[in-house]
């Protein structure tokens, strides 16, 4: 039975019907919109008029796709049989055709049959599914372990064990994407999926992803890998994948996490072993070079320049480039806390958040970054305090 099923599924997948449907829908869409939008399929991400699960890149994703087709075919067959009977009856057994109603209304035999048969079908559905569940949950013997931390609204990655151990970075949506979204003028095949730092992993290695979160629940999802795992604050959970093809794969946060829920995508770059080793090497050097000396004393101009990049990457989405905020988001421009003589006040807001997390905590940023961004906001737009915050000030404030 499995063989016929497999054949059926293969048939269904290669079915040109799908192509046909896609063509037809594309034509409809063209008619509806009047003009073709300049958007194409994103390899490893969504395709235009995609009707199906994405092409699988891992064994698990392949199994899931098989299961989905298996279920779909069984359900469609039952559906056609059951509603074939119903529509036959609707057409034939009409009063307008002079059909007289029969008088039967009970049959224990029939009732037993149509209880037992679905039961057997359900067991046949459960068997292959069980196999996949067990495989899916086996996170042992990983070659590489990476912790993915959900923040409002970005992902932090730390390579905990395996090649690349010690690497960690934050992955944020490319700022231009967020601006396009606000402007209502999206463009590009990787719209809302482009990040500054992609997660890089080696091909054909079992990668275990440990998820957790800093603030609220997020979910780390990459459809091509068949992976979706909630990232829960205060708890760690894990999942795994073993990508079998080099390439770029995309996903998005899949658990409502507040205002910017739609703006924290996941981009995984799968590299060949040698390329991965090279990436680890460069990344480590880069990190060593970029590591800020926490004892460095900054000049005002340097701190503002550094702060501008921190602001663009972290703050701008809500507070806007002009510092005016908007709606429930406070303006930083001419804000009393920002202008306050006591520098620590603003540092504490950045560290701990405000208004029940409407302004989230940013304590995951380094002392240097926080110092720089506070300096920047204190000396931008109409704010002209001339105040300079040093990393040591932030360090002191952290223990308050």
């Amino acid at each position: 039975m499995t063989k016929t099923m497999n054949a059926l599924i293969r048939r269904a997948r290669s079915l040109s019907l799908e192509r046909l449907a896609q063509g037809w829908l594309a034509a409809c869409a063209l008619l509806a919109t009047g003009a073709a939008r300049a958007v194409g399929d994103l390899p490893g991400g969504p395709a235009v008029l995609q009707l199906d699960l994405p092409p699988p890149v891992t064994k698990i994703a392949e199994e899931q796709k098989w299961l989905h087709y298996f279920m779909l075919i069984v359900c469609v067959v039952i559906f056609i049989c059951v509603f074939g009977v119903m529509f036959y009856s609707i057409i034939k057994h009409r009063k307008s055709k002079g059909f007289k109603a029969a008088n039967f209304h009970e049959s224990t035999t029939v009732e037993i049959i149509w209880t037992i048969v679905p039961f057997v079908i359900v067991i046949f559905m459960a068997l292959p599914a069980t196999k996949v569940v067990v495989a899916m949950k086996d996170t042992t013997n990983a070659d590489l372990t990476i912790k993915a931390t959900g923040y409002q609204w970005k992902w932090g990655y730390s390579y905990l064990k395996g090649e690349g151990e010690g690497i960690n970075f934050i992955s944020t949506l490319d700022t231009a994407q967020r601006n396009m979204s606000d402007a209502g003028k999206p463009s590009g095949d990787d719209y809302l999926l482009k990040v500054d730092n992609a997660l890089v992993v080696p091909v054909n290695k079992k990668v275990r992803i440990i998820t957790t979160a800093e603030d609220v629940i997020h979910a780390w999802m990459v459809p091509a890998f068949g992976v979706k795992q909630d990232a829960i604050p205060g708890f760690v959970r894990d999942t795994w994948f073993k990508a079998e093809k080099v390439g770029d794969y995309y996903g998005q946060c899949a658990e409502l996490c507040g205002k910017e829920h739609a703006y924290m995508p996941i981009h995984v770059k799968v590299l060949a072993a040698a390329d991965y080793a090279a990436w680890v090497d460069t990344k480590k050097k880069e990190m060593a070079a970029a590591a800020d000396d926490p004892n460095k004393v900054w000049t005002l101009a340097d701190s503002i320049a550094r702060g501008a990049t921190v602001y663009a990457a972290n703050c701008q989405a809500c507070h806007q480039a002009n510092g005016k905020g908007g709606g429930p988001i406070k303006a930083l421009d001419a804000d009393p806390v920002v202008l306050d003589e006591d520098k620590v006040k603003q540092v504490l807001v950045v560290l701990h958040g405000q208004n029940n997390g409407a302004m989230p905590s940013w304590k995951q940023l380094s002392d240097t970054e926080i110092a720089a961004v506070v300096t920047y906001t204190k000396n931008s737009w109409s704010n002209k305090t001339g105040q300079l915050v040093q990393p040591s000030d932030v360090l002191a404030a952290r223990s308050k």
Partner: protein
Amino acid sequence: MSAVIDHHAGHAHDDHAHDDHHGAPHGWRRWVYATNHKDIGTLYLLFSFTMFIIGGILALLIRLELFHPGLQFFNPQLFNQFTTMHGLIMVFGAIMPAFVGFANWMIPLQVGAADMAFARMNNLSFWLLIPAALMLVGSFFMPGGAPAAGWTLYAPLTLQMGPSMDAGIFAMHIMGASSIMGSINIIVTVLNMRAPGMTLMKMPLFCWTWLITAYLLIAVMPVLAGAITMTLTDRHFGTSFFNPAGGGDPVMYQHIFWFFGHPEVYIMILPAFGIVSAVVPAFARKRLFGYTSMVYATSSIAILSFIVWAHHMFTTGMPVTGQLFFMYATMLIAIPTGVKVFNWIATMWRGSMTFETPMLFAVGFIFVFTMGGFTGLILSVAPVDIQLQDTYYVVAHFHYVLVAGSLYAMFAGFYYWSPKWTGVMYNETRGKIHFWASLVFFNLTFFPMHFLGLAGMPRRYADYPMQFTDFNMVASIGALGFGLSQVYFFFFIVLPCMRGIGAKAPQKPWEGAEGLEWEVPSPAPFHTFETPPKLDATATKVLA
């Protein structure tokens, strides 16, 4: 409805010595002090339709923003408020009260009782809904706007919400209290007030499904109240049930919520099964096939609904055994649900069918609801659910069950029973227009969402990658059409009926209809079955 008023005004009660106790007050007092099950039923139905329109407007605002990628109209925070409030209003304000309205109108008529068991509690359970609804809808105007944590109100996101969250929690407490009172009333009415000869196994299936639903409500509404109360104390009184910062467990919230939430799903569909089980035999002119197995199937669904809740949580990272248990248990629900569908089709088989609007909606229900059932079966398979959880596939699935399921059944019920309520026949052509428009636009809206979900578009997204544009456009166009169809329904079908415009309805407008509700005149007089009727052996006819 007005026809009921007219009838009462012309109806002399002189033959009753206790007439003055029964006289209905006129004007606003009639509704505010209402203790008559028919009046309260009408109030419930009008209230739920109002909420349905408000929830529908929110849905259209969501679809407006999603028509095209990029933010054109609303900021993402406001968008989240729309999705959250759409869910809360539709579940707690539209579907649940509407079914209580049907229960109020029909259960006393169907079991041959004079009224509901506790008439004053009935009044209270309706009027509690008004402040609750005002508070819920009014939360849009509170500082920070309405709750935006999704209708499931997952912690710890709820801890970040503004004061409107507290208003929302309070509103749900009140609505829960109202539901529990309504349920007590229904249970006591069904168990204690049936006319002599109306044994439980002769009762119309609508009464059965509501009896079971009422028990479900009493079992799970306090669970919801517990979950949201814990959220409230976490927010304001320093507890940490769900707050990880204090050692709490956000996943525990989900367990508690879905222990309520899954039976809630059946609370919203079981009465629908009851309505369809009344309409199909009436228009097939043939008795319901397998009455006994229908009762058992309904009970099985209700019992199973308590052991499947964690299938909403496959992605939280449950252990293998947990995933397997909840997967198997969920798949089992397909069996009693299948039995019901088979029974309806067997009822139609070799009947003598006609297709007036109630039957159209009932057949539409069976056809489209079953599609939602099948996607539910697909979602129950944990590995597939991992791909589809929190995507538009789930959105498509539950709208197939709740709109094409619950709502269609209510439309069927309206067309079937409104001649009894108003005393006039609705316009058949208009009913058919309403049906076909609803069917086409519903599928146009929600069918493409299956594809969006399979392609990986997460739900509750204010903006999305460009590749998802086409299907979102189709869905938005469909949603507008569906919304307009319902406006048409109100102005061209409901309103004329309420005004008494249309052909006068006979006592039993449907040739094949059976049951005690067709033994009283149309419109049903203000008081019916004041003395217990004498019933025939099938308990469907009153003996003179």
